[in-house]
């Protein structure tokens, strides 16, 4: 037979918004910006917008559609995130999906004692070290608000411990411009210089307005700082349904879209081409406990819709998965994480955070991180689709099979079993007696053991000496104050 074109493997996707739906939301967002307007508390941000064609109306600034469309056009569709060794490990671009933890949990579950206690700087380093080894985790976030450092410096200490704990790219938070300047100094020392950092960024800043439509001073300042330096940034609203956003998801999406686009516009006005990660968080504000619900189905639903909007704009996009409202790593945690991880993969959300969050983001759990690592591993396999080819159709093996017999010992099985089937790393498929003999362990217990093993064994390359020197300087300056 002449060489034939192989049958292409379909990789499953979902579409949450039709083009019409996306358009309707987009037009509503433009209308929100030009007829309702935002409140801009940052002077420089205000001037930038006014100079570019926005206008004041009472206490609001109203932004014309053209300003927004220009910003969407100038923003890059791809953010080439590197690790701190200068390797391109996380290009945020169409169809790629990357996972990582979240930031700033006040509490953590102690890996030795199981106690829920306040997070420390060492926890941030330790969790980064764990993430450094987990092969389904692509980036780090702080996962802790260190309680053992001066309160106003906790972001700085988180940043330092994150980059010490892992080489993977990081998404970081900060209090204000001063924090950003210190973190930038350290980052430049790691990368080898400002130009090097811009070319191979290993950090992405997370900033947020306050929904609805309030752009507070420090948050805007941080966005402007990143644009000034040409380093990656977000301006991510959280119009949680019934909280910062309307109770109905489409309204929350339109509002969040408007807010994110306003942030995008600011970044592009400072420096066209600033790498900007688009997105929003659309959790439900729970109507009994008034918590922001990390397990709510509204969130993955909104994430998929938001990713469709990002495709409409051709921008890289942020999302959330792997978190739970449960206070323990139990069936609820498994359910909530899996629904969102599946949604993230199927919609092709580029940067998916909050893996390992329990108790609606108040507490970090290494067990949850390890469990969700396995969930990601398994769902990733589903995303591979069904290869239909000569090797997988197994025509000859079927032809020679003994009717009523089996394929276990067939050559085709022996030749292909390694790649053809998925094998769990943490999920258990033992026979009952074996499981009893091994201690009747549930998944969370196994996750804890795995975490302890990683923490005991995994080595992380240290920061360059120049970076440690700058860190020492920065910390000394802070202490002197």
């Amino acid at each position, binding site marked *: 037979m002449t060489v034939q074109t192989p049958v292409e493997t379909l990789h499953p996707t979902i579409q949450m918004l039709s083009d019409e739906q996306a358009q309707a939301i987009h037009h509503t967002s433009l209308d929100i910006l030009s007829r309702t307007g935002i409140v801009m508390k940052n002077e420089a941000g205000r001037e930038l917008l006014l100079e570019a064609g926005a206008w004041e109306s009472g206490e609001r600034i109203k932004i014309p559609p053209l300003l927004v469309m220009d910003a969407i056009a100038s923003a890059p569709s791809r953010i080439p995130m590197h690790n701190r060794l200068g390797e391109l490990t996380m290009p945020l671009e169409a169809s790629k999906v990357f996972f990582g933890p979240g930031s*700033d949990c*006040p509490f953590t579950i102690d890996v030795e004692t199981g106690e829920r206690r306040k997070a420390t700087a060492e926890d941030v380093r330790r969790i980064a070290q764990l993430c450094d080894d987990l092969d389904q985790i692509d980036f780090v976030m702080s996962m802790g608000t260190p309680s053992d450092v001066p309160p*106003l410096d906790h972001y700085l200490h988180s940043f330092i411990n994150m980059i010490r704990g892992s080489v993977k790219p990081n998404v970081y938070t900060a209090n204000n411009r001063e924090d950003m300047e210190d973190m930038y100094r350290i980052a430049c020392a790691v990368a080898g210089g400002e130009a090097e950092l811009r070319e191979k960024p290993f950090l992405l800043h997370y900033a947020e307005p306050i929904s609805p439509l*309030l752009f*507070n001073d420090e948050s805007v300042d941080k966005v402007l700082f990143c644009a000034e330096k040409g380093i990656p940034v977000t301006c991510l609203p959280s119009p949680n349904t019934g*909280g910062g956003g309307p109770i109905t998801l489409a309204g929350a999406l339109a509002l969040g879209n408007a807010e994110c686009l306003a942030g995008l516009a600011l970044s592009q006005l400072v420096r066209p081409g600033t790498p900007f990660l688009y997105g929003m968080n659309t959790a439900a504000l729970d*109507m*009994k*406990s*008034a918590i922001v619900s990390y397990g709510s189905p509204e969130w993955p639903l909104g994430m998929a819709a938001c990713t469709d909007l990002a495709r409409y704009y051709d921008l890289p996009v942020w999302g959330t998965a792997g978190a739970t409202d449960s206070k323990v790593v139990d069936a609820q945690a498994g359910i909530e994480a899996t629904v969102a991880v599946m949604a993230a993969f199927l919609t092709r959300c580029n940067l998916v955070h909050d893996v390992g969050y329990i108790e609606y983001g108040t507490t970090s759990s290494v067990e949850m991180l390890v469990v969700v690592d396995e969930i990601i591993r398994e769902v990733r396999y589903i995303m591979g689709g069904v290869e239909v080819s000569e090797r997988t159709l197994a025509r000859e093996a079927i032809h020679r099979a003994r009717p009523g017999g089996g394929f276990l010992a067939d050559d085709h099985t022996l030749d292909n079993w390694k790649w053809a089937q998925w094998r769990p790393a943490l999920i258990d498929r033992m026979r009952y007696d074996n499981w009893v003999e091994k201690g009747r362990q549930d998944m969370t217990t196994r996750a804890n053991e795995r975490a302890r093993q990683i923490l005991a064994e995994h080595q992380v390359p240290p920061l360059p000496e120049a970076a440690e020197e700058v860190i020492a300087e920065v910390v000394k300056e802070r202490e002197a104050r």
Partner: protein
Amino acid sequence: MTNSQILEQIASNLYKGEDKVVADLVQQALDQEVSPADILNGGLIAGMDEVGKDFKAGDLFVPEVLIAARAMHAGMNILRPLLAESDVPSAGKYVIGTVQGDLHDIGKNLVKMMLEGAGFETVDLGTDVRPDDFVAAVREHQPQFVGMSALLTTTMPGMKATIEGLEEAGLRDTVKIMVGGAPLTAAFAEQIGADAYAPDAATAVDVARGLMA
């Protein structure tokens, strides 16, 4: 309807959020010469207490509480001028605000609504409230309570600064100080010298009442 029947009706309709019915019944009660104080305590507050109890037990949703609060306001709109005339004491005066540097207020507003439902008079200072402004408000309004809210860990120190400001002004002993917000804990409240911490709006009312006793 007898007077006690009307009060029962006010309470049960308030619970269901029937604001127009509550307003009519309040007027009817006044026409039947029930005193404004009795209508307030036996009708409106009695109804909101049931709401608070069921909310705390996890049987009611926040929107149901808010709808009930709306019915309470409908009743209060009629009663308020009469209560002022006849000098009926409120459950207490409560100055509330989100601390300096923090603009988050959903939680604070929920607490405020629950307090008003329980008959407290609230003075809402809004968000980004400097320690000096809390002190000035205490001086001006002479409340029994000051409540402070924060959502950002970086703004929590403002709570201690406010307490210190009240001490310097010689006003600390005149108020009970409560604190709350997502990153707050009872331990933090104790550390900074607050009188109490409440983890959510439902508990806040009980905590406030407990401090009065």
